[in-house]
């Protein structure tokens, strides 16, 4: 312990020899660490947000027939679920299941009498859907669907409403193929308009109630059941459990349904992974350069220490500690900087512009993940140690006579 303390003290004093150089080296390590932590924290926040949005949209689990997930239907709800009430009761008996929401997904036409547009519609249970899912869409005009409405209601995407010149109270007609393949039509009243933040969706999206959708499609089936759990972490275990319980029906997780989430995660992992590698290389170069200068300047001193009986391994340890101190100080400062920026963003929110294909921005937030902080700091210290050892290796093994004669 005393020996390590002596080497540490020696390394610390050596770091202070050329303060400006040490400061620059530690600053690069600091900026590198902060950049990795901020980028990583931003990516993590994005993943968490997208994961929650995806799970909120579909449910943590989706129960359907195997063909529902893999095959294209010839007629609406060809691969839908029957006996929904029994399935729902059985699902709700599971301790991890908080809610079960049936969903009827269909497409068709919507018309105001003068103009007709294509719609992508979902039949939902109005009261439960909006209560369980929370604010998943922005109501722009009117009200949400009512569960006990006397007449059939629809909620329109804002761009679709604009296209059809529909406002709350307007009457429209829905047209769709029934499960038998015949055409059916139904008059509905617009109760409100909403925006999902994705213009392409808002041009086509229609929400109505499950009974209205089933009446239009002339069926008692639903497309799938969205299963909402008590927490995200229950997803894998519940999937395993419910998958066995409801076989041959199939249970998929929100992640299997969330193409956008997976795409963003893959993209960000590559971008931020490459960024991390670049930062790591820069830090290694800077530390290598700083340590190379330090070692060259001290070659004669290294020769003296070798003459006095210091083993090369002991000198390597000392120089490695020196690099680790610089990297460690920089990593610690970088972590504090990243933490400070993350806190500042909480106190003074900054809005990001809308991503491509979206109409609304989102708040810039950075997650603070202790594991990410610990790993990044550890990696920074190891990188600087590696760079120091790489540089010092040759000099500490130089013949003592040559080292003493170095000018």
């Amino acid at each position, binding site marked *: 312990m*005393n*020996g390590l303390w*002596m080497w540490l003290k*020696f390394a610390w*004093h*050596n770091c*202070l*020899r050329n303060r400006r150089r040490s400061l620059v080296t530690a600053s690069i390590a600091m900026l590198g660490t902060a950049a990795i932590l901020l980028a990583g924290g931003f990516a993590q926040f994005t993943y968490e947000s997208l994961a929650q949005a995806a799970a909120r949209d579909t449910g943590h689990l989706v129960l359907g027939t195997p063909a529902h997930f893999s095959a294209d239907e010839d007629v609406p709800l060809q691969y839908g679920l029957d006996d929904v009430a029994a399935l729902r009761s059985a699902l709700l008996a599971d301790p991890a299941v908080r809610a079960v929401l049936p969903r009827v997904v269909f497409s068709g036409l919507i018309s105001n009498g003068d103009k007709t547009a294509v719609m992508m519609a979902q039949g939902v249970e109005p009261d439960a859907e909006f209560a369980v899912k929370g604010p998943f869409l922005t109501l722009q005009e009117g009200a949400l669907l009512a569960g006990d409405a006397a007449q059939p209601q629809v909620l329109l995407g804002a761009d679709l409403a604009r296209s059809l010149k529909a406002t709350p109270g307007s009457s429209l007609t829905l047209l769709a193929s029934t499960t038998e393949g015949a055409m059916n039509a139904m008059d509905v009243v617009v109760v409100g308009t909403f925006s999902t933040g994705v213009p392409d969706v808002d041009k086509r999206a229609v929400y109505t109630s499950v009974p209205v959708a089933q009446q239009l499609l002339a069926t008692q089936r639903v497309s799938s059941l969205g299963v909402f759990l008590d927490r995200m972490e229950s997803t894998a275990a519940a999937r395993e459990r419910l998958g066995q319980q409801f076989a041959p029906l199939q249970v998929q997780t929100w992640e299997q349904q969330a193409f956008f989430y997976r795409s963003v995660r893959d993209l960000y992992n590559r971008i931020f992974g490459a960024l991390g590698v670049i930062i790591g290389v820069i830090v290694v170069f800077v530390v290598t350069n700083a340590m190379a200068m330090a070692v060259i300047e001290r070659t*004669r*001193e290294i020769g*003296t*220490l*070798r*003459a*006095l*009986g*210091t*083993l*090369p391994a*002991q000198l390597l340890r000392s120089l490695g500690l020196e690099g680790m101190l610089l990297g460690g100080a920089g990593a610690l400062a970088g972590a504090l900087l990243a933490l400070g920026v993350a806190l500042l963003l909480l106190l003074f929110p900054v809005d990001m512009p809308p991503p491509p294909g979206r109409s609304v921005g989102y708040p810039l937030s950075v997650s603070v993940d202790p594991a990410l902080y610990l790993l990044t700091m550890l990696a920074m210290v190891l990188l600087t140690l590696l760079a120091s050892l790489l540089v010092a290796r040759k000099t500490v093994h130089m*013949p*003592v*006579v040559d080292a*003493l004669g170095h000018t």
Partner: protein
Amino acid sequence: MMHAPADAAAPVVRMRGVRKTYRLGAHVIPALQGVDLEVQRGELLALTGPSGSGKSTILNLCGLIDTPDEGHIALSGTPVQGLDEAERTLLRRDALGFVFQSFNLVPVMTVAENVDYPLFLAGVSAPERRERVARQLAAVGLQDHARHRPDALSGGQRQRVAIARALIKRPRLVIADEPTASLDSHTADQVLDLMRERCQAEGAAFVIATHDQRLTRRCDRVVALLDGRIQ
């Protein structure tokens, strides 16, 4: 790692038929051409001669920081041929002290830490090290400068620190390369007195390469070298 125990009756250094050449590009420069030399315990031996005569080469070989091309070298009866680099390092650590012309103190260490360093390397306990360092600094008259950095000392004081560092572990042999060359005559006299006194007090042999006539006059024996041969 252990090395053979010292033979108290044997000379501290025994060199027999030692030859050493250096290569400088295509040129082969004979540095030593068959040198026989013995240094006894407690002896203050001066090596003199013009530049290139082989003084430093003898110091390097005695100090185990270089190896001969031919011949035999023994320290206190222990042959040093065949020792690997780690064994030579540990032998230097335990049995040899070095005093350099330009002091070669570690600038980031205090005076006490410089003197303490060889004991730290040897694994001596902290309380014993403190006591021995204090005693050694008192012996060289620098007890009041223990916490100073070398750059706060005069040249003479620095060389005193170097001598204290060389003697702190009670070595069998101290290698001194032009120890007074960087000092004024008054300070050089003081350093010489100190070396002589510590040589007698510690029983260590000194091998000193020097051009300084005052120093050679006060050594026990003077060996003159010319073209790699003892005259």
